[in-house]
């Protein structure tokens, strides 16, 4: 059986909130359930058994070992809908979409929801690792004497909880520090980063104002728009912010042109053509193909967030396309400098020849087609929820246009990059 066409049929997310704010009391499960239920309500899927639901979270409690299944059991989907968790850092939401799309293409399932949720407000705190080992030893002790002698090893210093670290385990550097190194290497200026940031805020605000998100966002806990959105943002205002990453002339990255910690969840509905017809749903876009790449940022000479250009090069080659064959580019704005480094690298003949093995550089893109409905700098970036936000946004943009093709690119911790192609459905 040859692969079937797979379509994005709809998307839903809750507005993204700044960490420690409006969603302080909401868990990943609360938010993911809300995102799924909004999607279910909008597409009249109450009581429906879907092929599967795949979603995940990056910052996750140990008790959330079956997060997505628990969210399904708390949703209005049929309790007979299978589910599983996916975790691929910031690539989680898009990778979940790829996984379910592949199953639909193979005919293993006819419909699915892919999504993700993240909260840094309700983050897990771990017990100190020494204390954990002591408690485990006491737990496995065979005699009371052994247990007491194990417990007597607890020291006051072990009672402090393990601080959650925002850094790469193998380099000890935060993502921002890594990005600052790459930004300097590519000569990305502060002004260019601030300009990209302003465009993101303006595009997102304009998209809200024209009602673009009316059928993509469901209000949650009294929040109706992304809390991080600053429609009045300007290069002048951004230029007053102090750099937070990098040193000396590499200090170009600020809290304005980096994404803030954010809470939120998103979900995307996919299905085969037949399933969509049976449920009277309009295909928004065809999910064409996807590619994931990884780079050696540990000992190799590549930046942590530079995997997407590698993935894009392979994806274009496999599909016989050039970088210019797209009507929309959705490049996730982890930092403004990330997007600018990707664009610079793809234009650079040396990078494209030496790193990507191409005779010709991928070339430049028409910047007016980039993140036209805003992206993570304005909306915020609840790690696993970003993929679903972007897939739904691009699918709707393509449906509005009625033709054309879009490219999604998402960088992730661990030197990962996930990219995908969507096409308007005829």
């Amino acid at each position: 059986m040859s692969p079937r066409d797979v379509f994005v049929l709809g998307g839903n997310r809750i507005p993204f909130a700044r960490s420690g704010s409006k969603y302080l009391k909401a868990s990943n499960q609360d938010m993911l359930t809300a995102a799924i239920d909004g999607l279910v309500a909008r597409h009249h899927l109450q009581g429906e058994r879907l092929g599967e639901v795949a979603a995940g979270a990056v910052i996750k409690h140990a008790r959330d070992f079956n997060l997505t299944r628990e969210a399904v059991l708390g949703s209005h989907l049929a309790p007979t809908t299978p589910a599983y968790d996916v975790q691929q850092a910031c690539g989680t939401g898009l990778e979940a979409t790829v996984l379910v799309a592949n199953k639909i293409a193979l005919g293993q399932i006819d419909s699915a929801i892919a999504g993700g949720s993240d909260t840094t407000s309700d983050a897990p705190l771990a017990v100190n690792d020494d204390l954990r080992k002591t408690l485990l030893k006491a737990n496995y002790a065979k005699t009371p004497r052994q247990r007491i002698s194990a417990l007597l090893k607890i020291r006051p210093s072990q009672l402090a909880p393990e601080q959650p670290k925002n850094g790469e385990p193998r380099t000890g550097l935060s993502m921002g520090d890594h990005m600052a190194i790459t930004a300097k290497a590519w000569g990305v200026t502060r002004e260019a980063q601030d300009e990209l940031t302003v465009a993101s805020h303006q595009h997102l605000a304009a998209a809200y104002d024209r009602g673009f998100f009316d059928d993509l966002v469901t209000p949650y806990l009294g929040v109706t728009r992304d809390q991080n959105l600053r429609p009045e943002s300007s290069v002048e205002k951004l230029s007053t912010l102090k750099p937070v990453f990098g040193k000396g002339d590499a200090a170009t990255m600020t809290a304005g042109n980096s994404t803030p910690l954010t809470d939120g969840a998103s979900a995307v509905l996919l299905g085969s053509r037949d399933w969509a017809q049976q449920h009277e749903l309009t295909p928004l876009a065809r999910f064409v193909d996807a590619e994931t790449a990884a780079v050696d940022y540990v000992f190799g000479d590549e930046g942590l967030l530079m995997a997407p250009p590698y993935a894009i090069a392979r994806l274009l080659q496999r599909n016989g396309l050039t970088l210019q064959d797209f009507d929309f580019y959705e490049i996730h704005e982890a930092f403004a400098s990330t997007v600018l480094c990707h664009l610079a690298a793809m234009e650079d003949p040396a990078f494209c020849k030496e790193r990507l093995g191409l005779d010709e550089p991928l070339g430049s893109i028409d910047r007016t087609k980039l993140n036209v409905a805003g992206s993570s700098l304005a909306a915020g970036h609840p790690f696993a929820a970003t993929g679903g936000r972007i897939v739904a946004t691009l699918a709707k943009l393509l449906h509005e246009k009625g033709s054309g093709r879009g490219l999604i690119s998402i960088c992730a911790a661990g030197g990962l990059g996930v990219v995908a192609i969507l096409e308007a459905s005829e």
Partner: protein
Amino acid sequence: MTRTVELSSAPALGPLFAKAVIRTPFRKGRELPDLVVRQAGAAVDRDQLAAYADVCGFDLNDALPATFIHVLVFPLQTQVMADAAFPFPLVGSVHLTNSIVQHRPVLAGESLDIEVRAADLRPHFRGAQVDLLAEVSVAGEIVWQESSTYLFRGQKVPGVAADRGPEPVLPTVPGAVWRVPGDIGRRYAAVSGDVNPIHMRSLGAKALGFPTTIAHGMWSASRALGALSNRTPDRFTYAVEFKKPILIPSSVEFVAQQHDSSWDLVLTNARKGTVHMLGSIVPEAATTIS
């Protein structure tokens, strides 16, 4: 003539309980006061809602659990029962049954007009029983109604009490087992304001004739609805009958069986099988409480 008390905010329950205790020796008469207590424009405190959802097992979202609205109504019920003209002492009253009609989902951002009165004083084989009737409206539309029946032990009113009724037929299927921690009374008191001493500490419970602390009946009703919150339709009647109190800490077994589109609920002691609560969820607000 109906006496109406308009409240601008929910009354604090601690002072109401205290006032009710002080008035106990002076209560007389065997008639309910013609009294309506109202609160217009009540707003939901989202922190309270989040804490309630956590204690009662609801997902946190913008639709109010039908049993959460009881928490908003309860202070007004207490105000009616603490009123000088109310014939029976509030402290020691027993919540027998509770019936909620949700006419449509109510959202956390809505402004709620609450009205409560007492009705239908009648004999019970252990004393006298009264219905506390509550109505919640949004912009003139009734969205939620409740009838809470309370027993006042040893009180006599004219008439013949109904029989105990037949013993319930219990399900034989296994259910979910919930561990009910010893502090659930204090935790539910913190989110509901119902600080009745029988729920707080074993000493308080013993002083009022219980072997130890007992869980709030409305906590078990809330916890049961929370377990089914995504299986209930938009319009439904949720009726529960409280049997033996849950002595805490304890493990209870919860069985929910679906018949057509209705649910039958049973909450029993996981070890002994004694019945704590019987309930039903019936779709379409078939009846209104008048």
